[in-house]
């Protein structure tokens, strides 16, 4: 009796499930019946996270990750490489695990996008068709923004704002500098990749100078009057590197208009600075493929819908990470990862013919003022008036007054965060 009852219940369940599928299937668009094709361009924190999230949410989706580099070199913690505290090898990650998870990895550059035909042209002349496209191209450095600062100048005055050879070049220049030399970092106006990055870099370079070349100085020439975690950084400069770090704000004449690579000179409206080591962080815009796709606006960045991350100007194309204008959300690896998951959920929902719900996103940025001195800022964001806005009262920054033990713990959390996010995305 028991057996027969079980069988009948199972029959009932499978019959009702079939009925449900039939009832649901008819009103859906055609692409929901076959597996939707999603292409993700860019294999950094945003793109790789999005490809994996898509596959996890719906294993039936055909997910392709287009990324010409076989190895990804991460920017978070690359300031430690510059300061001689870390090997660049620890920044490198491959795509083997991503390929093994059922994602097609195409190691070619995407060169064209036909938004009407929904195809991506690749560097070898072939093309791929998509139902939805995700762009996570990161940044392009604007070599037209500072007079004299072009790609050739970057070989003399490194930006080190894309991790890799540039990171090592800046490291080598610091190693070669005499004790008593002047290091100058130029910081751009907002928005740019990693808002606390220039100031963390100043700290960690100062840490190296204090340890190895204590008569040296570091000046930050800034195109802004305020920056992320400002008081925490300024306190750290006073506490850890007294007399060594000087910040020149916009209203103090800090905006660099031009550079002379022949003499390593940085030119402002009110004076010139000649550096032994000049680290020029130029203004930026969305990675080139975003403009090719027609997803950029006159700012050079990509306006997006804050619920789906779909481009405001290019239908069926979503933009995540540093390339998008995410309102109050900063351009960070953490943000890119959070946006990737939100976008993947939205795409899976859209291809199933439903409307995605409004998301909440989190960002946390750790910075190191010294190897054992961490500070952080966290925020929660939600769509409001067509943009991502701060959730009032959520998030916060490290306290201004804290013990060195507290700062050391935050430095540990920073290490743990990096290990966690890279394991999730590439491991």
């Amino acid at each position, binding site marked *: 009796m028991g057996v027969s009852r079980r069988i009948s219940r199972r029959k009932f369940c499978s019959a009702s499930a079939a009925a449900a599928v039939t009832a649901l299937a008819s009103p859906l668009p055609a692409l929901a019946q076959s597996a939707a094709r999603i292409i993700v361009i860019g294999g950094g924190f945003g793109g790789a996270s999005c490809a994996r999230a898509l596959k996890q949410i719906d294993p039936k989706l055909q997910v392709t990750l287009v990324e010409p580099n076989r190895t990804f070199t991460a920017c978070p913690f690359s300031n430690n490489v510059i300061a001689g505290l870390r090997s660049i090898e620890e920044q490198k990650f491959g795509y083997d695990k991503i390929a093994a998870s059922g994602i097609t990895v195409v190691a070619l550059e995407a060169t064209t996008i036909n938004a009407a035909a929904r195809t991506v042209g690749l560097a070898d002349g072939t093309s791929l068709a998509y139902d939805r496209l995700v762009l996570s191209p990161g940044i392009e450095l604007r070599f037209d923004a500072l007079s004299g600062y072009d790609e050739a100048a970057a070989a003399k005055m490194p930006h080190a704002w894309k991790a890799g050879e540039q990171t090592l070049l800046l490291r080598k220049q610091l190693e070669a500098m005499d004790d008593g030399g002047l290091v100058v970092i130029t910081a751009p106006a907002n928005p740019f990749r990693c808002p606390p990055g220039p100031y963390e870099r100043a700290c960690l370079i100062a840490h190296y100078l204090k340890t190895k070349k204590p008569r040296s100085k570091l000046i930050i020439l800034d195109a802004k*009057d305020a920056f992320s975690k400002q008081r925490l950084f300024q306190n750290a400069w006073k506490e850890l590197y007294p007399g060594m770090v000087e910040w020149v704000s*916009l*209203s*103090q*004449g800090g905006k660099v208009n031009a550079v002379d690579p022949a003499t390593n000179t940085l030119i402002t*409206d*009110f*004076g010139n600075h000649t550096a032994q080591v000049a680290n020029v962080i130029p203004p930026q815009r969305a990675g080139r493929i975003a403009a090719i796709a027609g997803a950029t606006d006159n700012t050079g960045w990509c306006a997006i819908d804050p619920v789906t991350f779909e481009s405001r100007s290019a239908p069926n194309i979503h933009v995540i990470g540093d390339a998008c204008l995410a309102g109050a959300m900063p351009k960070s690896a953490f943000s890119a990862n959070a946006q990737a998951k939100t976008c993947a959920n939205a795409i899976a929902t859209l291809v199933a013919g439903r409307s995605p719900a409004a998301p909440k996103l989190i960002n946390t940025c750790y910075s190191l003022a010294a190897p054992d001195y961490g500070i952080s800022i966290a925020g929660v964001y939600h769509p409001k008036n067509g943009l991502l806005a701060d959730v009032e009262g959520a998030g916060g920054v490290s306290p201004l007054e804290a013990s060195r033990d507290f700062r050391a713990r935050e430095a540990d959390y920073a290490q743990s965060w990096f290990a966690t996010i890279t394991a999730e995305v590439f491991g």
Partner: protein
Amino acid sequence: MASALINVPARAKRGDIIEIKTLMSHIMESGYRHKASGEAVPRDIITSFTCRFNGAEIFRADLFPAIAANPFFSFFTTVTESGKFEFEWIGDKGFSETASASISVE
């Protein structure tokens, strides 16, 4: 604390056209903003900038609420003799700042 930045060439040839740059740090609060409580933020702007050379006015500008913080001026003049440029910024709430720079003309 207000502070002026001035860029005037230290020397020039008689008849040269020179560029003068100035930047005065100032919040330039427009008067059109409101606090979260709804209370208006009072206007606080620089209203006038003047440059004199050896006592004679050579450049003047009136400033208005739409001008951004830290007003930056760049202007040109012809130099005929050595002397002193004097700069003056006047604004709301009794704001008044001066600066000067000398030039030697050959």
